[in-house]
Each structure stands twice: as structure tokens, then as C-alpha cells.
């Protein structure tokens, strides 16, 4: 039956995709027949979450192998989809197009960074870690370098990075649940959390894998459909990716015409928190090469160090499949990332071009305030206008918007039916849930497998290990939700920090573990802890008014952290004894795909 399920995957997910499209059509018809916007929103979120929970329940398991690595039988392409969903978070889905809208070229370093990192994953790490046969990333560190301290240090770095990330994701599920279900955010966060746990608790990695594939299908339809529809409706082009050059050029012209007028600080005080105006060029190069490259580099190295991504490649049937699967992952990510700049372009042009019926710049304030969608999004605290110069006409520097509005509001501005907004909510929910699931599982697995089983109680039976893993899953989930409910930080900021923490502590210990035989335990421990501490210190220093150096900001502090990590690791390794023969043999075995994995099937 199990083998049967794997063979039937294309059919199963084909039927699922057809069913989802059918559901969208039914909702569209229901809208025409008078179903309210609110009811459509609830239906979309409730229906999709129910499906994910059902998959989670069907994937329940009592085997360690299935719980930790989905039985190592996830086919290449499906693992690619699952990784793409695991990877693309609420930030990618809801906030990225907004970031591009406001900051243009300089922000797009994130697009390059969040894709280029996969080249490092494929060439430096994924196939070798798959050959190793580990259950978790600290499992590799602990076995390669030996000793509980090395293992524990890896767990510490993993937990700091992933926990920073996961609060942002739970926050995003809460935001969407609160809008779609119309409940207060403090409760919505826990609704989001329960949905997340339903996918992962019973089936572990197996449950998460199959829900992530389902979530990818929902989120990619929810992202691409509006982009194509809006582009066609605006007459901008039938295939936006290849046809928006004129629109990009037109935005440049309008920027020249309007100019980026700086607002007085006193005026800006009246603008609600979190909203911003357009102050940077759209397609012109508006960042120094180093600002762009350092951000891209930090994100690339962070990608290759984030455990929730790496552990997806532990689930493929072979080393060969792990390599190919990285390619598929990036292909599925590419579909969304290459569309985000198009959405930002369409959204910006439709708002600022006075020649378009939707354009609001140049209209009088009375006209804009009478528009339905402006009223809706103004109420939702995502749009704001203010006549600073008192001339009665809206100008570019008098219009403010929240980053989320680009994805959430553009369909409505372009006059698409509400069913699309419901679909977008379901997509955002899928994106945030899938990433949160991967992250919570990464933390809980590291603590249950590496701390509890490997360090505290190596004789524990499978049933007890899995019980501990599930209890930890719930505890970590609730801790994340509690912090998310406090709303300390924006979604995007904490996501970027997670990359920096991960690269500070894990990038070089992981890479050198495969590529440098001489790397030893002392070096790795110094690299992990030293890198993490150096990175964290730099962040605190810059946040508390420090000037920083070499243009490294609070968004790229991982560059400093990982540099410290590299130096410490090399120096300490060379000062201490080289690894023993058995370890060197282990590294040799990792480097070739054939032969048995280093760690047994069940360990």
C-alpha cells in the first residue's frame, strides 16, 4: 500500500489540483449568486486547512524512520515542491512584492540571494549529508566531529536561527487567519498554530512532506493567477514576465515627472506605523554594489545553513535524487520569485499612472476618498493619504501604503472578483503554515533526537522517542505563538536575522565537515559558538547605536559572524590534533555516493 501511494503520487496530486480548481470555480459562482466576501474568505481558509489536516492525519506513523525522514522515499520532483513550500514563507508570499514595490532594485538582492543559495546547497552540502544518512543537521555535526558538545552546539545554533524564523511565520498565519476569519489577532495566532500542528504532529516529516506538496500547489496557483489576470486586464501583456518592459520604462518616466519629494519629519508623524511612501527608483540601480552584494551573499550562505531546508534533502531515496531535487526545488521557487517583481510593477503602475483608470496620483483628495477599495484598505490600516502641501491634489509623497497591500489589495484595485482575494488569503496561509511546520519540526527533531535520544537517554525505545518528539513539537509551537502574539517585530526583519544567525554558526562547520578532512572537533565547536556569539554581538552593537564597519548592517551581520567562525575554525583545528583515522575514513565514504550510508537506517 505504501509503495502504491508513492507510485500513484502524480495521480493523487493531479486529482487534488483539479479539486482545488473546482473549488475556486464553485466559489466564483457562489460570489455571483450573492455569497458575501467574508463568507468566501472563511470558506477558502477553512477548506484548505481542513485538507492539510486530513493529509496530516492520513500520514500518521509510529516509526522513527518515517517520522524523522519520511521513510527516505520522497521522489525528486515532489520533494522539490515540498522544499519550495517549506522555503517560501509568509514573507515571500505576502511581503516580498511589497518590498520590491517600495525599495526597487536594492531590495531585489533578496531575490538573487534566496535563489543563488541553492547552488551552494546542491554543490557543497545536500548530496553529502544525504549520503551521511543523518536524521537532523546536528546529527551530522555530532557524528562527523564526535562528542556531545559539538552536537549540542549545533542544536543551539539551529534553535536560535529557526526560532527567530518561526515566530515570524506564526505571526503571518495569525495575521491571515485574523483577517479571513475576522477574529482578534491574539486568538488568531493560536488558530494558526493548531492548524500548523495538525499537519506535523501525527506524521512528523512524512505528514509535513505531503502537506507541503499540497500547500505548494495552493500557493503557486494563488500567486500566479492574479498576476496573469491583472496583467491581462490592464492590457499590459498576456505573459507579464516577458512583456512588462514598457510598464517598467513608464514607471521610470513617472518617477522623473513626479520626483521623489522628501517629506518633513513633522508630516511623517501623522502617517500610521508600518506604512511607507515610494521614495526609491523602481528599476534604476539605487544601491551601491557592496550593499547589494553583501545582502545577497548573506542570504545565500544563510540558505545553505538553514536546517529546515537541509533536512528536506534527507528524505530523497538516493544521493543522485538529492542533487536533482535541489534543482527542482529552485525551479518551483523560481516560478514565484520571478513573478514578484512583475506584480510589484503592475501594482505600482496601476496606482501612480494618471492615464490609467485606477491611478490615484493627480486626483483630488475628495475623489480618492470616495473610492471603495481605498476606504476598505484605509480601514484595514494599509493605506493612508494626507494633503501635506494643502493643494487638494494627491501627490506621490502624500500616498502611503503597507507592504502587504501589494499582494493583498492589488487584485481588488484592478477590479478582480473577491474570489481572488479569498484565494490569495488561502495562498498566504499555505505559505506561512508550510514554513512554520518545517521550522518547528526542525527544532523539535533536533532536541528530541540529538539532545534527548543521543545525549540524555540513548536506550530509549522508539515509542518513547516519538512521544518526546511530539511533546516538544507542541511546546515549541506554543512558545513561538506566545512570542508571536506579542508582535515584537515585523515579519521580514526576523526572517532575515534567522539567515544571519544560521550562517554565523553553521555554514563553515557544515561545509568544512565535508570539504576539509583536517577540520576537527575543537575547531568546529569554536566555529559554531564563536560565530554565533560574534554575529549576535554585532547585531546588538548595531541595534544599540554602534556604527558598524565595512558597511555590514543589522541585516547582514552574518557576514561578520561567519568570517569569525571561519577563522576560529581553521586556527583552532590546526592548533589541535588532526581527526583520527576512523573519522577520516568516514569523510572519504561521505564523498562517494555508492556504499552504505554512514549512519544506519534506524539509529
Amino acid at each position: 500500500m505504501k509503495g502504491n501511494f508513492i507510485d500513484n503520487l502524480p495521480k493523487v496530486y493531479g486529482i487534488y489540483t483539479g479539486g482545488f480548481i473546482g473549488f475556486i470555480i464553485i466559489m466564483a459562482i457562489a460570489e455571483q449568486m450573492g455569497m458575501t466576501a467574508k463568507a468566501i474568505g472563511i470558506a477558502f481558509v477553512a477548506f484548505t486547512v481542513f485538507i492539510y489536516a486530513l493529509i496530516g492525519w492520513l500520514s500518521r506513523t509510529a516509526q522513527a524512520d518515517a517520522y524523522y525522514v519520511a521513510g527516505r522515499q520522497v521522489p525528486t520532483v515532489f520533494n522539490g515542491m515540498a522544499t519550495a513550500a517549506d522555503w517560501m514563507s509568509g514573507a515571500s508570499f505576502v511581503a516580498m512584492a511589497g518590498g520590491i514595490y517600495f525599495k526597487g532594485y536594492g531590495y531585489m538582492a533578496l531575490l538573487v540571494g534566496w535563489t543563488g543559495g541553492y547552488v551552494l546547497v546542491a554543490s557543497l552540502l545536500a548530496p553529502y549529508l544525504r549520503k551521511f544518512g543523518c536524521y537532523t543537521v546536528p546529527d551530522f555535526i555530532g557524528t562527523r566531529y564526535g562528542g556531545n558538545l559539538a552536537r549540542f552546539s549545533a542544536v543551539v545554533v539551529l534553535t536560535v536561527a529557526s526560532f527567530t524564523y518561526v515566530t515570524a511565520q506564526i505571526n503571518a498565519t495569525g495575521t491571515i487567519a485574523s483577517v479571513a476569519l475576522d477574529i482578534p489577532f491574539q486568538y488568531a495566532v493560536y488558530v494558526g498554530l493548531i492548524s500548523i500542528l495538525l499537519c506535523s504532529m501525527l506524521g512528523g516529516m512524512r505528514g509535513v512532506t505531503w502537506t507541503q506538496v499540497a500547500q505548494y500547489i495552493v500557493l503557486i496557483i494563488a500567486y500566479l493567477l492574479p498576476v496573469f489576470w491583472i496583467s491581462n486586464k490592464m492590457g499590459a501583456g498576456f505573459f507579464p514576465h516577458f512583456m512588462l518592459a514598457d510598464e517598467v520604462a513608464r514607471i521610470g518616466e513617472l518617477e522623473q515627472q513626479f520626483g521623489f519629494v522628501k517629506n518633513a519629519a513633522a508630516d511623517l508623524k501623522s502617517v500610521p506605523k508600518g506604512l511607507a511612501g515610494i521614495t526609491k527608483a523602481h528599476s534604476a540601480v539605487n544601491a551601491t554594489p557592496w550593499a547589494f552584494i553583501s545582502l545577497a551573499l548573506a542570504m545565500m550562505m544563510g540558505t545553505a545553513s538553514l536546517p529546515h531546508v537541509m533536512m528536506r534533502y534527507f528524505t530523497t531515496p538516493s544521493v543522485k535524487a538529492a542533487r536533482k531535487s535541489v534543482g527542482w526545488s529552485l525551479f518551483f521557487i523560481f516560478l514565484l520569485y520571478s513573478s514578484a517583481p512583475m506584480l510589484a510593477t503592475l501594482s505600482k503602475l496601476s496606482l501612480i499612472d494618471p492615464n490609467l483608470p485606477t491611478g490615484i496620483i493627480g486626483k483630488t483628495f475628495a475623489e480618492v476618498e470616495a473610492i471603495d477599495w481605498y476606504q476598505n484598505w484605509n480601514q484595514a490600516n494599509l493605506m493612508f493619504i494626507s494633503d501635506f502641501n494643502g493643494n487638494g491634489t494627491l501627490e506621490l509623497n502624500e500616498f502611503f501604503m503597507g507592504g502587504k497591500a501589494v499582494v493583498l489589495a492589488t487584485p481588488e484595485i484592478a477590479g478582480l472578483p473577491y474570489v481572488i482575494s479569498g484565494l490569495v488569503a488561502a495562498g498566504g496561509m499555505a505559505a506561512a503554515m508550510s514554513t512554520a511546520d518545517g521550522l518547528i519540526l526542525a527544532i523539535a527533531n533536533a532536541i528530541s533526537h540529538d539532545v534527548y535520544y543521543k545525549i540524555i537517554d540513548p536506550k530509549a525505545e522508539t515509542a518513547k522517542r516519538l512521544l518526546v518528539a511530539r511533546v516538544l513539537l507542541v511546546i515549541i509551537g506554543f512558545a513561538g505563538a506566545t512570542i508571536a502574539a506579542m508582535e515584537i517585530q515585523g515579519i521580514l526583519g526576523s526572517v532575515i536575522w534567522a539567515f544571519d544567525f544560521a550562517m554565523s554558526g553553521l555554514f563553515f562547520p557544515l561545509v568544512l565537515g565535508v570539504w576539509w578532512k583536517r577540520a576537527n572537533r575543537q575547531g568546529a565547536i569554536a566555529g559554531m559558538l564563536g560565530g554565533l556569539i560574534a554575529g549576535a554581538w554585532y547585531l546588538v552593537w548595531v541595534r544599540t547605536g554602534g556604527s558598524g564597519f565595512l558597511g555590514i548592517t543589522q541585516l547582514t551581520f552574518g557576514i561578520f559572524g561567519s568570517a569569525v567562525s571561519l577563522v576560529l575554525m581553521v586556527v583552532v583545528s590546526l592548533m589541535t590534533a588532526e581527526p583520527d583515522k576512523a573519522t577520516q575514513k568516514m569523510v572519504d565514504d561521505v564523498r562517494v555516493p555508492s556504499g552504505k550510508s554512514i549512519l544506519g537506517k534506524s539509529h
Partner: protein
Amino acid sequence: MSNQQKHWEKTRGLLFITLAIWFVFSIGIFLFGAEMNKVTGPFGYPWTYWFTCQGSLGAFVILIFWFANRQEKIDEEFGFSEREDE
């Protein structure tokens, strides 16, 4: 030199080529971002802008598949491919 050493040497060679191409598309071209953006590129977008939207991203996808195929060939050449039953 043993078979395994030769295999690793070739694997390392492939890694350097892969990282060199990766460097060009992720870092190299953005050193000249301002100059390149003045020239019209594919589909009429300015060159640098096009790279950040699509070009570099697409290049990475192709690069990974190319790398995976090359590495498979190297593994086969030295007899280190996995057998189906492993």
C-alpha cells in the same frame, strides 16, 4: 593515485567551475550594476534589472541541473554510482 582520489579531484574541479559560474551571476554582474543597467537587455528590460528579476534566478536553476548531470557522469566514470538496491 587511487581511484577514489581521482574521483574526488574531478569532483572538486566541478565544484570550482560551478562556484565560478555561480559567482558571476550572483556577485560579478552586480559589481557593474549601474553601467549595465543603461543598456537595454532581454525583452526590453534594462540588463541589470532583468538579471535581478529573472536572469540570475534562471541561470541558477540551469546551473544546478547541469551540475547534477556532470556529477553523475563523474560518479559513473569511477564506478561510484549508487546501485538501485542500496
